[in-house]
């Protein structure tokens, strides 16, 4: 204080500069930094929210299509020789019948002209290996159908399904102007046209060559910069290839070959389909995918040029498969239906046959064990710590312990399960029992902490009143305090169970990662749970399983939101202010 008085005498009031332009600028700067600071907060929330929205839309966009599935709806003749070769009508023999062959034959009947070996093989690959399963069910339910023709749904194979869901790229078609003359109906044929109908595709293939040459040149330049012996060799190869492409591009009238790195061009003519392999303005040569009816001339407007925009090497379905699928689709044979199999089947190596039922049942069993253990133990521990425990070192230790356990990484609980439950107690691997035990230990701290908070929120007057009219300490707690704390405890329990539902890592440790086809029936059967199923599927290379993974995630998130919604509803409904 004395320092200040010598520095600024009390008699002279300090002049505060508030009106000068410098002061105004200072204030403006302070307000600016105020606004900036506030905007940081908003930005942080917006970024977080945007991430969440991105995550959820991404999952939904990938996952929702897997709830639908494409099937063929065909007339299937149930030939006795395939289904019931002995003709005795024995249900066991019928169950072992070759329904896949029946399904295949029904599909082949859709393409009468197609008889090449590889074409037929391609055709049979369009439908799932389980395509006959629904037929089998139908026939077993009604064996009299054998010998008749029934309309049935044949499940499409996963890649065909993905193509029909739009993952195969677009198709564009345009009607041709000239009169076309094909030279044959099968094999490799030529088609000549009176107008230059093919010139667009011809020019495009030339320009694609130029683009490819440009890419190769840049790549070569990059490799040359890297300047190692290995990269220089590669650079030279790239330069050579680029030179070839450039040369081809430089001769605009020369025949051009189309390869699988260019969009596929096809000609639809006389009921058949020809894949273009060599192209000129007015002439193409190509392989017949679907045989032509005749070699008659096709008038202008009667034939079409079709382009599959995505190059064949960039998609999972070949041109032939697309041709078949498009033909089936045009014939109204393809049906898009709700994928009930996804919810009624166990895991499978074939994506179109894989479902989440096994994982869901496993999850339910596991969570039942978890709930059965950690709810009573958690509530009892909370009641003890909150109502009965003396304040001593042991109680203090337990409290510190619970807080620390709540933050132990979940994978460590998996190690505990592996070393103690599996290795020491010899409990079965992969069993919901062990999974439930591990998860119970994992969520116990959460439930204890939530239950204690709920018990603490009940005013002491309730207990004191009970004690006052002669209840014992336990009667006061169990008859009055605990029932009032129950909604809070339930909320905490549901949140704890939701946590357990999403847990994956500890379950990996105790072997719940096996590939399990059967739906588990008991607590010691090998099982897996939904999050682990998600992990397993996400690890598989097939693109169809990526969609399945996202589909399973949608199911998991749906259940989680329901559980959390229930918790919020409980809290709102029973919330009491004392």
């Amino acid at each position, binding site marked *: 204080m004395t320092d200040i008085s010598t520095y600024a005498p009390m008699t002279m009031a300090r002049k505060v500069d508030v009106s000068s332009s410098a002061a105004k600028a200072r204030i403006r700067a*302070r307000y600016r*930094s*105020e606004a*900036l*600071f*506030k905007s*940081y*907060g*908003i930005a*942080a*929330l917006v970024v*977080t*929210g945007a991430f*969440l929205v991105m*995550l959820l839309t*991404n*999952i939904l966009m990938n996952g929702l299509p897997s709830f639908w599935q494409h099937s063929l709806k065909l007339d299937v003749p149930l030939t006795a020789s395939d289904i019931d070769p002995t003709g005795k009508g024995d249900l066991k023999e019928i169950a072992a019948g070759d329904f896949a062959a029946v399904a295949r034959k029904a599909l082949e009947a859709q393409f009468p002209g197609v008889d090449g070996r590889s074409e037929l093989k391609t055709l049979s690959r369009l439908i799932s290996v389980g395509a006959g399963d629904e037929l089998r069910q139908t026939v077993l339910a009604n064996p009299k159908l054998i010998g008749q023709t029934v309309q049935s749904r044949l499940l499409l194979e996963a890649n065909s399904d993905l193509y029909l869901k739009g993952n195969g790229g677009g198709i564009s078609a345009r009607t041709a102007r000239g009169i076309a003359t094909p030279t044959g109906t099968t094999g490799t044929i030529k088609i000549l046209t009176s107008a230059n109908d093919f010139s667009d595709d011809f020019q495009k293939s030339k320009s694609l060559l130029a683009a490819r040459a440009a890419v190769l040149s840049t790549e070569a330049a990059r490799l040359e910069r890297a300047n190692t012996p290995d990269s220089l060799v590669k650079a030279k190869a790239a330069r050579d290839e680029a030179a070839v492409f450039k040369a081809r591009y430089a001769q605009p009238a020369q025949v051009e070959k189309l390869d699988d790195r260019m969009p596929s061009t096809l000609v639809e003519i006389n009921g058949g389909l020809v894949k273009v392999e060599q192209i000129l303005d007015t002439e193409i040569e190509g392989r017949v995918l679907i045989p032509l009816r005749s070699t008659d001339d096709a008038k202008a407007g009667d034939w079409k040029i079709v382009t599959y925009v995505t190059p064949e090497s960039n998609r999972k379905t070949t041109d032939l498969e697309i041709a078949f699928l498009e033909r089936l689709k045009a014939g109204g044979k393809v049906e898009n239906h709700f994928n009930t199999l996804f919810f009624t089947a166990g895991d499978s190596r074939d994506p179109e046959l894989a479902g989440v039922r096994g994982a869901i049942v496993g999850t339910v069993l596991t969570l039942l064990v978890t709930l059965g253990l950690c709810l009573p*133990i958690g509530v*009892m*521990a909370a*009641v*003890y*710590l909150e109502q*009965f*425990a003396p304040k001593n070192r042991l109680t203090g230790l*337990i409290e510190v*312990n*619970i*807080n*620390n*356990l709540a*933050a*132990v*990484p*979940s*994978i*460590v609980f*998996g*190690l505990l399960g592996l*070393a*103690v439950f599996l290795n*020491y107690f010899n409990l079965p691997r992969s069993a919901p029992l062990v999974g439930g035990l591990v998860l119970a230990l994992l969520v*116990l701290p959460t439930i204890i902490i939530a239950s204690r908070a709920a018990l603490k929120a009940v005013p002491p007057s309730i207990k004191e009143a009970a004690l006052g009219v002669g209840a014992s300490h336990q009667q006061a707690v169990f008859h009055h305090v605990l029932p009032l704390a129950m909604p809070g405890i339930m909320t905490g329990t549901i949140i704890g169970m*939701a946590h357990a539902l*999403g*847990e*994956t*890592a500890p379950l*990996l*440790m105790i072997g719940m990662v096996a590939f399990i086809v059967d739906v588990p029936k008991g607590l010691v059967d090998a099982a897996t749970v939904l*999050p*682990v199923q*998600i*992990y397993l599927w*996400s690890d598989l290379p097939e693109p169809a399983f990526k969609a399945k*993974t*996202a589909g399973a995630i949608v199911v998991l*998130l749906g259940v*989680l939101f329901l559980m*959390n919604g229930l918790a919020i509803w409980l809290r709102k409904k029973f919330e009491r202010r004392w």
Partner: protein
Amino acid sequence: MSGIYFATLAVLMLASFLIVRSRASALINPVAGGRVTVHSLPIYHGLLAATLVIVPMMIIYGVGTTLLARYAESSALAGLPVATTSDALATGAALREIQNYALGATQATPSEALAKAAEIYKSIFVAGNWAILGLGTVLALIGAGYAFFRVSPSFRARNMFEKFILVLLMLSATVAILTTLGILFSVAYETLRFFFDPALKGRPTVADFLFGTEWNPQAAMRADQGDVRTAFGFLPLLTGTLLITVIAITVAGPLGLFSAIYLSEYASTRVRAFAKPILEILAGIPTVVLGFFAALTVAPFIRGWGESVGLDIASESALAAGLVMGMMIIPFISSLSDDVINAVPQSLRDGSMALGSTKSETIRKVVLPAALPGIVSAFMLAISRAIGETMIVVMAAGLAANLTINPLAAVTTVTVQIKTILVGDQEFDSAKTLAAFALGFVLFFITLLLNMIALRIVNKYREQYD
């Protein structure tokens, strides 16, 4: 057999409860000549009787079945030739065959010795199970009889029952301690074996483990695999873990802290009602989902972006895993910081505002310094969460143990290695499996340390304003 046992238990329990309760009710029923003043209500007499049935029967079952299994196994194996019981593996196989045969679960015809052993095994089990059932029933009847004959107006059945309940409550509370002890012992025991078990081939020294720069637990199983050398150097895993954690905290720290500041200091009730659920939903998303998103969407996006600007980014880069992990811990940091900021007394803010400072100046110069210990501990808890997180890194980070601090390279973490080593079949006598437990021990130790420090800081500074 367990079915019969527990059915007996249920019947005895219910019967003793009903009988003893009705006997006690007669005491207070004037029509039956009873008196009105009794110490305990009839239901407590009944509950005591039921308790005296359950407790001995459960103990007998637990102890009995364990002992029986041991005895049956050793008796069965004693009859076998020495060759089949020479080592643990053969013993286990023989035992499984005996069990399968005894249960009738196998069609194969066993050898004569095995069949005999299975017979012994089976007969011991049958006899033993009946003995357990008999003993349990006798003890239960004694217990129920005690409760039955002690029924009297002055008998303190309630106090006895409540004492039992209190013990039960106490036992429940010790489960938490048992869990910690279980973790500590299981992990520490295997870790000690990893370092000091002389029978273990290829075990490293503690120094090798802590300071080695090469991690390669996949031992060369055959000689012709050549120069693949087993190495248990922990450093690449530590740097990988720390690298991803640092990225995560760099993302989550500012985002979480600024969200918390905005929500607690600026936001109106309506904004809070809208923004809080965003953070809560994010906190509730399982990490396997985040891992899927990281591996399938974020990593390819980062890689593509890197290609477009001429950077060579690994498809399992630390950056992708770190970014998504950061998103995971935003709600964590934000909610903890929110709590500590709200705990700063309003008077401090009022004082600062009264001196003419703007809101942001108040926050930066008064509120945040006051809340700093709490925020630091929130960050520590978040770091411990990030270090222990498994699924995101398992799915989005790599397996290659590179000693690097380049966020664009692929690194591996402690949790990824634990998972990789332990998923699938494992033998408890290989250095590789035990290495996972050593890693688990380190993980447990680090996170425990971080938590304890963080909790201590919070507790210490919480008192300052109370």
